[in-house]
């Protein structure tokens, strides 16, 4: 075997997604903070990593999946304005903290760190990228280091929407169309929400021009044919679309809250936040409604250990751990590749996908770790080379053909997290709404449609897609913001019911329709004809 063949590949994939949360009917809305926290702690630090790597001319390959709801929220002017207000408030709080902690040098040092952090965040967001982070991601895609892919329109769990082929087709196609409209090119890869695969979805992916997607490990190990190369080479689903499987070993090192890197005692503790610790009078302007304590993002302690008093956070010690953990990660990948090379008929590819929001939010040091890993992997003396799946497919041909097994990367490995006693009530309503939409569109085929009807039909399609988000049943099962998830899905289904009724009765109120278009303004170029059962891709009835 040549030296080249002794090498192997590491494909790091970050999946960036948040549910579509935007409430123009309120002056501010707490759940919009999910986006603001992610921008501050995850996406801008990631952009900082990519910019530094580019400046230092470090050769690397990273894949980033941007979900359509996230794409739309990042481009939304209302949310951009609200984010700037959020960031200015964070900066103001950090400056107050510097004053408050003047007699506590350990904490004051950290308060200054946060002020620098927020200032830099503001500079990147407002000055460097003019409040449009998609420009940053596209810049690195164009540079050839970052491969951008996308996901289903509203992150719907496709196997549970598969009562209707059209529902799944639209989740895929509208997702890709949204990506294309905003990024200016078509993606090669597709992130199945929750890696939820069912046999047959590859046909719809192929029709949409997708070349590859991802499944969890058992999706490949339980495939229709035993995979010759385990999870370390993709399978051809039989139609040229390739399925890549997650590597359990590299996942565990990062994902596990007990054994993974993020649980190291020197890393920043997530749960000790000044929003919960400081006097209410002092912290009131920075928490919810001036009295409900929430995370502010300013945290002064390290994990320390279970059942131990928390000690102050030491960024330098944390940085040492970052370097150690990055080296450990690369070393382990090298050992994996050496072992795999003895039995594989081609260079192995290790698929390491993670939620992008892990890096920087739960795991404050995550972006630094990622940067270290990419720098280490760029060293030619390593036998690990970072690669994207597109690059791998360009180099390797003749893949084993097999159908993956239905699976997810969720708890228990299948669909039970999204359909159980906490959330199964939603499915009859989702399926009914889908069937009604398809029938409605079918009934309009061949008829003259007014501008008002067209707007209403398009808005009805938006309501269905928003109701189909897998985030809502996920939240219902996890038991966190269940009231909000229930409210959201109820609202979207009610809005669909209203529009369906108004369209059927030819009684569309322009004021009500405008209100719904204002509140749910996702997918501006949506086309209701996509719900026609006989419609092929890229065709619209005249």
């Amino acid at each position, binding site marked *: 075997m040549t030296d080249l063949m002794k090498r192997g590949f590491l494909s790091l994939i970050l999946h960036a997604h*948040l549910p579509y949360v935007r*409430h123009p009917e*309120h002056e501010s*809305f707490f*759940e919009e903070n*999910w986006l603001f*926290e992610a921008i501050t702690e995850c996406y801008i630090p990631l952009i900082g990593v990519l910019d530094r790597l580019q400046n230092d001319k470090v050769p690397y390959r990273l894949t980033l999946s941007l979900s359509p709801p996230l794409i739309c929220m990042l481009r939304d002017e209302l949310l951009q304005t609200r984010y700037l207000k959020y960031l200015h408030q964070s900066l103001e709080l950090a400056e107050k903290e510097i004053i408050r902690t003047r007699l506590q040098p350990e904490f004051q040092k950290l308060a200054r760190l946060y002020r620098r952090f927020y200032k830099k965040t503001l500079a990147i967001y407002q000055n460097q990228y003019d409040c449009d982070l998609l420009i940053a991601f596209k810049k690195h895609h164009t540079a050839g280091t970052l491969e951008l892919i996308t996901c289903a329109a509203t992150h719907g769990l496709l*196997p*549970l929407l598969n*009562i209707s082929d059209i529902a799944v087709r639209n989740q895929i196609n509208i997702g890709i169309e949204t990506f294309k409209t905003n990024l200016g090119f078509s993606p090669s890869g597709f992130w199945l929400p929750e890696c939820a695969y069912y*046999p047959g979805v590859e046909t719809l992916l192929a029709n949409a021009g997708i070349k590859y997607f991802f499944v969890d*490990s058992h999706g490949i*190990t*339980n495939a229709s044919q035993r995979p010759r190369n385990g999870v370390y080479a993709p399978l051809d689903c039989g139609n040229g679309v390739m399925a890549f499987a997650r590597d*359990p070993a590299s996942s*565990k090192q990062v*994902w*596990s809250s007990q054994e*993974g890197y993020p649980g190291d005692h020197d890393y920043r503790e*997530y749960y000790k936040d000044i929003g*919960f610790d400081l006097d209410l009078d002092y912290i009131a302007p920075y928490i*919810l409604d001036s009295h*409900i304590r*929430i995370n502010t993002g300013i945290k002064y302690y390290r994990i320390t250990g279970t059942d131990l008093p928390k000690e102050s956070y030491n960024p330098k010690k944390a940085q040492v751990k970052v370097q150690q953990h990055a080296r450990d990660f690369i070393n382990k990948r090298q050992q994996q590749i050496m072992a795999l090379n003895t039995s594989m008929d081609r260079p192995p590819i290790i698929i390491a996908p*993670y*939620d992008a*929001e892990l890096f920087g*939010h739960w*795991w404050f040091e995550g972006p630094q770790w990622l940067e270290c890993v990419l720098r280490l992997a760029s060293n030619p003396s390593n036998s690990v080379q970072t690669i994207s799946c597109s690059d791998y497919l360009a180099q390797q041909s003749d893949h084993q053909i097999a159908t993956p*097994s*239905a699976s997810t990367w*969720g*708890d228990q*490995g*299948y*669909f039970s997290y999204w*359909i*159980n006693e906490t959330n*199964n009530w939603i499915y*009859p*309503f989702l399926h*009914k709404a889908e069937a009604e939409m398809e029938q409605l569109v079918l009934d309009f085929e061949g008829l003259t449609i007014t501008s008002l009807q067209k707007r209403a039909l398009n808005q009805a399609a938006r309501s269905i897609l928003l109701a189909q988000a897998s*985030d809502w049943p*996920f*939240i219902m099962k*996890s*038991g*966190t*913001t269940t*009231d909000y998830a229930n409210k959201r899905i*109820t609202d979207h*289904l*009610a809005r669909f*019911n*209203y529009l369906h*009724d108004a369209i059927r009765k030819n009684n569309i109120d322009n004021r*009500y329709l*405008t*209100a*719904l278009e204002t509140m749910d303004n996702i997918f501006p170029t949506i086309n209701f004809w996509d719900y026609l059962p006989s419609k092929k891709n890229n065709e619209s009835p005249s």
Partner: protein
Amino acid sequence: MKLTQLDLLEISQEIRQCYAPKMSNSTPTLTLMPVAPKHLYAYWNLGDNKPRPLQDSSPLPLTLRLYSASDKNNYLNKGYEDIPMSRTQSQQDIFLSKPSCDESYRASLGICFSANALEVLADSNLTQLPQEKPSITQVKPDFRSPLIATNKKIYNNASGRSLSD
């Protein structure tokens, strides 16, 4: 047309109140959904006009007749498996003891008058369950939806506030 925040809020509230989802179906339906290997979920709606046997005080059993979609003749040696279903609920989890060879299923929901005779009220879609085979240990992400799964008390309060609109 320019709408104020109050306009948007009022319209949103009115629509939620007047158009909240509710099941009504004149046509009986039966839907099967995959959950996990050997685990199906079924929901049904028998429509506005329930058949007389279901209205009697001494009801006959409501039965789900489950067929292997591809192996009708050989599935469990008689072509189907009969599963008693709740008469008071409209949904039920179904756990299979002996899965079919390819895990594809259809079903009919009806009244079982005798050992083999089923008066069919609704037929289902085709569904396919995941196959269960020995596999390598799955690593489940522990850090899932980090921006959502934090302090339960706070998020309930926060969501409670947003529900008061």
